[in-house]
């Protein structure tokens, strides 16, 4: 394991520790989506997924 991997791992640990309270806060305070809200996410997510598959085919 070289020093770049050690530094990367330490940086990731730091980001996780810093982001943890904000995540907990957002989990508690963000509005809860209805099933219709979540369904509105399905179409763009599917389009993005298919688009990535298309890019993979093109390369």
């Amino acid at each position, binding site marked *: 394991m070289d020093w*770049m991997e050690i530094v990367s791992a330490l940086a*990731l640990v730091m980001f996780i520790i810093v982001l943890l309270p904000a*995540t907990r806060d957002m*989990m508690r305070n963000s509005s809860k989506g209805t099933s219709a809200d979540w369904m509105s996410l399905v179409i763009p997510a599917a389009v*993005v997924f298919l*688009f990535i598959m298309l890019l993979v085919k*093109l*390369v």
Partner: protein
Amino acid sequence: MNQNYSTVAQRSSSAIATNKVLRSTYMLLSLTLLFSGLTAALSMFMNMPPMTYMISVIGGMVIAMFVLPRFANSSAGIGIVFLITGMLGFGLGPILSMYASLPNGGNIITLSLGGTGVIFMGLSAYALATRKDFSFLGGFLMVGFLLVLLAALANIFLQIPAMSLMISAVVIMIMSGFILYDTSRIIHGGETNYVLATIGLYMTIFNIFISLLQILGIMGNDD
């Protein structure tokens, strides 16, 4: 009657303010992306070593997390945004040089760049056209992002190529969600600071581009 006029006037002034934030965000985002392109070209020209990427990303993220929020409401915030995006662009130089040296590297870079642009513009247009409130995504996206960071941390030790491919794919999906979430926040007045809005959208574009490069780089090289 007067109350009706007052309500209409309030709504209209709120819509004007939202449009102003949106316009300023996209203007600053375009300029920072151009600036990143310039610093990336400079870094490629200077033939910077691979560790430049790691140093730039860590430095850029630390400034974005700890310094930018303190200056976001002053004109210094714009300078800091250019510093962060310039650093991240400079870090991209060695990565782009590495991909450019692959047999179909030019194709991989072009497709990643074009793909990132299409995903960003498509999702922004979707959020702007539907004007849907995606604020419910906040907690879900943050948890997803934390899990991805944990998986990336584990893969530094495990070194599984399939896992890094999976992480890149999940990052693109999560960043796509953040584009909807951030754009919706600007539209609905949840984000009134265009400096913070710009850096949020810039990070999503940066992460999608890097992840697409990785996916197309792995899938495009059979040998």
